[in-house]
């Protein structure tokens, strides 16, 4: 491309030159905005009315530059990949009633999509079909049986509940303590009507974004309780999020209505409680969708350098007890631009199987995003790694390991004279002097009787 430009450079007139320059500027612009290009989104619905009932949600995505492709969930032509290239970066599954997704969208194919870095937002309902259940199971979340809903006799919405106490008003206190996922604007209770999620305790990647209150449980409201419910109390997860080790993000909600225009604009009032004109749903969904589609909480680490104090280039190897300076640049993606990340909790480890040193990186004043740590190499030699494992709820995992070797002191690097050894030196030198004197006397002695 650029060689083409260069070849034709001379032949072009001024106006064409300008045009080419404009083209170059334009291509540059697109490149810096490349995160904006990752907005192809497949929306699977099981009935096209969802497009209307959830219009606020979809409109906001479109306003933010997302290209939404609405497809029926059982469309036989569905495919996430064509000729080995991923067609979409994001997938929204708002098709709780589907028993089997059409086309190539098996749970395995969706897992592969996540392995390739794709993001998923999915919602279920008390009548969720097998497709959404299998998808949930793939990410360590289990939906309750068909017909069961989250019930809370103490925290239902007194104004709109149909009598089953399944339209519950969840206190924003029950949100996960991670403002990067849930935002800071959720003040009003959240309206939720749907299925409960059981999170696999052995899956360390799943986060419980929203849980129900202690008095809630999940059961079929038309039947008396005869067995232990799917979830009880704070184990009742309403919205779960997962960030895979490759930083792909998945959000699961047990309620499709949670995202609906009706719930966005509904007022909330608990039995005998304060009236809120507008539920917190819209604020939460806004933060959640920004998070799941990687508009928020994306970090990167670059320009890692390490050297001995006072030097500028890294040595071939460190010697024990030397002072070392480690520097790295931390950046956060904000509105498509990488800007310096500000935090005082980034830690550096110096690891040989186990960490020998763990220290907090300090910001270098005057330079955005540049962090520094200084420490003394331990008096243990071997192959070490400078390790950064930055795991904070909501932020992408930042992992880095730089390997260096640490050797013991050379024989010339030890202390040369020890006062304690002076007797040994003295005896050695007195021996030498003695040998000199003895040989001198032995060779040059003039014996008395001979001379006489």
């Amino acid at each position, binding site marked *: 491309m650029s060689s083409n430009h260069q070849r034709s450079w001379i032949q072009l007139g001024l106006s064409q030159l300008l045009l080419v320059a404009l083209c170059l500027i334009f291509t540059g612009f697109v490149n810096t905005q490349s995160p904006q290009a990752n907005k192809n989104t497949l929306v699977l619905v099981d009935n096209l009315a969802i497009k209307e009932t959830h219009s606020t949600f979809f409109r906001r995505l479109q306003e933010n530059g997302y290209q939404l492709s609405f497809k029926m969930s059982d469309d036989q032509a569905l495919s996430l990949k064509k000729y080995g290239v991923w067609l979409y970066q994001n997938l929204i599954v708002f098709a709780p009633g589907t028993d089997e997704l059409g086309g190539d969208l098996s749970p395995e194919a969706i897992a592969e999509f996540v392995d390739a870095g794709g993001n998923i937002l999915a919602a279920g309902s008390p009548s969720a079909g097998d497709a959404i259940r299998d998808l949930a199971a793939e990410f360590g979340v289990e939906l309750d049986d068909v017909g069961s809903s989250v019930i809370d006799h103490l925290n239902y919405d007194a104004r709109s509940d149909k009598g089953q106490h399944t339209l519950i008003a969840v206190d924003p206190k029950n949100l996960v303590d991670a403002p990067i996922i849930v935002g800071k604007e959720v003040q009003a209770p959240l309206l939720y009507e749907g299925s409960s999620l059981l999170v696999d305790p052995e899956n360390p990647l799943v986060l419980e974004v929203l849980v129900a209150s202690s008095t809630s449980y999940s059961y079929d*409201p038309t039947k008396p309780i005869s067995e232990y419910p799917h979830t009880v109390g704070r184990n009742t997860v309403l919205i779960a999020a997962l960030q895979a080790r490759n930083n792909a993000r998945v959000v699961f909600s047990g309620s499709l209505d949670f995202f609906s225009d009706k719930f966005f604009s509904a007022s909330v009032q608990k039995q005998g409680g304060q009236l809120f004109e507008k539920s917190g749903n819209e604020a939460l969904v806004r933060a959640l969708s920004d998070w799941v589609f990687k508009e928020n909480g994306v970090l990167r680490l670059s320009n890692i350098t390490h050297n001995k104090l006072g030097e500028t280039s890294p040595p071939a190897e460190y010697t024990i007890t030397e002072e070392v300076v480690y520097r790295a640049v931390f950046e956060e993606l904000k509105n498509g631009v990488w800007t310096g990340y500000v935090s005082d909790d980034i830690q550096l480890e110096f690891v040989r199987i186990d960490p020998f040193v763990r220290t907090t990186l300090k910001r270098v004043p005057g330079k955005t995003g540049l962090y520094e740590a200084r420490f003394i190499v331990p008096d243990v030699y071997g192959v070490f790694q400078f390790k950064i494992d930055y795991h904070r709820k909501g932020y992408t995992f930042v992992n880095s390991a730089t390997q260096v070797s640490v050797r013991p002191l050379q024989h010339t690097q030890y202390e040369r004279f020890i006062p304690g050894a002076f007797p040994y030196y003295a005896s050695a030198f007195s021996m030498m002097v003695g040998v000199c004197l003895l040989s001198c006397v032995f060779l040059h002695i003039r014996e008395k009787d001979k001379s006489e």
Partner: protein
Amino acid sequence: MCFATPVYVGLTSSSVLSDSNKLITVKATDLMGRPVDVTVMLESLTDKNGKAVSDIQFIQGVQNIADNTRFSWDLKSKALPKGFYKAVLSAKSTKNDKTLILPKSTVELKVIGKLGAVTTRVGVADSDQQSKTQWNDLNKGQKLPKRLELEPAQKLVVKIGASDTLHQVFVLFRNKETKKEIALIAQPETEGKTDYKLELDLTLQAKDLGYNSGLYEVILVLGDFLIEDSVEWNLGEVNLQVASGKSKAVNPLYAITYGMKPEIKHEFRKPEPRPPRVLSDAFTVLALVPLLILLILWIKIGANIKNFPVSLSALTFHLGLAEHSITTWVLFTILALFGVYGVFWLKLTMFEAFKWMTAPGLVTFISGHRMLSQISLSRKG
């Protein structure tokens, strides 16, 4: 010819009827929301089992004066047990207008009430049923007078006597320290009755408690669809000594810990302690003393070096290659070797010292050999 106008009758008031509010209001309009000339009748009210409420049959709705599309009934005087009901409403044209289509409509109503008297008995029993259970009887809202102490061989029994069937009779154990909650479900003691019972055996159910002993708050949650004052009732504290065991731990290799980890500072090895300076100095002197003694003794027995060439010319003569200068060469090279040794001690490395030593070493070897053979020859001679 007139067009037929369907009439829509729908509920405008809450579908929930409580003791304080038993007013049903409906709106009867055409599909465009315009008023029509009808009256509305509450034909019947049937409960969940299909049984009609006997004193509600064809009651004429009271038309609202301000808004003539609204009709209401106040069922305050009717005895309605708690439950779900279906009300059948029918509209009737006042002027016998044949163009109106008047379907019957069914609305769902729920009658709720207060949670009646509830008594709770909390007791501590032995697992082997040896001794009698000690009961604490509590009325609604009351707390245990003192903290209950339980040992692994005991069990906590909670019995709840309610006046209604309740959907939710849960006992929550909230660990005071970790704030973790464990919910257990009280089951009806006898089928179809409203007394519930929960037993927590501290040995058999230790796993449910995560093998965590300690202080727990006991919270009774009573809830139902038909109760307007579902309650979260704190019964008080219990100290549970749970049978020991180990809950399944997550493999630390796969676990992810969020947040900062504790800082680690490497502890450097301390150098070995050294003897005091005075001691080593004293021993240095001691090591030098034999040389001094040697010199004194030599002087005493009259050792000398009178054969040593004194003048500079004699010295240069001695450094020739003649036989008689050999002894001087030997002495000089020995001095040179020891000099190198001394310098090696001070600053050279071993390999550098080897290099420095080759020349004087070679000379010492040759001249020393010749000297010694000369001496042995002269002795023989």
